[in-house]
């Protein structure tokens, strides 16, 4: 039987997402140099994790296969991005 999450949890997550959005928007006005992208992506990943864990119920899963599926998806995306970039980044070495 599926677990029913309370509305309170959802509203809390929503509030967190809104705050994080304001935060990332505000931080973009600050000059962090090379770290701007790192901070922006960290906040985005935090927001994304909240959506995945709570709104998409991944935190409350009965079925572990779903987690495998999600990890596989992001892992394969990483293969695409990272292995392609190794070509471009190392071109200057030759």
């Amino acid at each position, binding site marked *: 039987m*599926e677990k029913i999450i309370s509305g309170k949890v959802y509203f809390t997550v929503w509030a967190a997402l809104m705050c994080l959005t304001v935060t990332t928007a505000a931080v*973009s006005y600050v000059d962090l140099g090379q770290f*701007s992208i790192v901070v922006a992506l960290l906040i985005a990943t935090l927001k994304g994790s909240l959506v995945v864990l709570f709104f998409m119920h991944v935190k409350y899963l009965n079925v572990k296969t779903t987690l495998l599926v999600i990890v596989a*998806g992001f892992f*394969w995306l990483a293969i*695409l991005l990272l292995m392609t970039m190794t070509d471009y980044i190392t071109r200057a070495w030759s």
Partner: protein
Amino acid sequence: MSDSSQALATHELRHHFEDMEQQRDASSMGMWVFLITEIMFFGGMFMAYLLYRYEYFQAWQEGSQHMNFWIGTINTAVLICSSLTMVLAVLAIQQGRRRLTSVMLAITICFAITFMVLKGIEYHEHWLAHEFPGSAFHFAGIDPRHVEMFFVLYFVMTGFHALHVLIGIGLVSTVLYMNSRGHYSADYHNPIENVGLYWHFVDLVWIYLYPLLYLIGHHHVG
């Protein structure tokens, strides 16, 4: 749960499944597998973005300055709100509250339409400012060729995202209609959950698009 709710659930059991639990687990897994195909589909675009940002960072900064910061930020908030109402719709049907479910689904659609309208205004603005790639493109600042590439990525990524929002509107409308016909209950509502998963995914993509397109470098006002 009520007898009629369970009867509905039994009625919806497809013949090749052993029981409702197997059907539900299968349909949910199916939607998740579909979502990772979407990760890879958008992944190709993120790859292009990553490469050209690496190669033409200044142009990326320039281009980002010309984004409509306020529409982008408001749209981010709009999608987050729509995710909330979507998950509340699922909560409502889990409690057997059909009318509340319909209300939540309808509000989700309203948010989605708001997103599309704001996007349309944005696109129109860019068009008027000669920022649509192609022969009409004209950029007065530095490195116009690579800034044009930024706009190519902008339109391609937000364009495909908007297409998915549109499809999402269709899907949410469909389950809204089906709910109004009494097809769902506390014991059977897989389609609403699965549409919810899709919708949250669409929100997730935008959560990444927003900083990558709108928040590079420092901002001028507007």
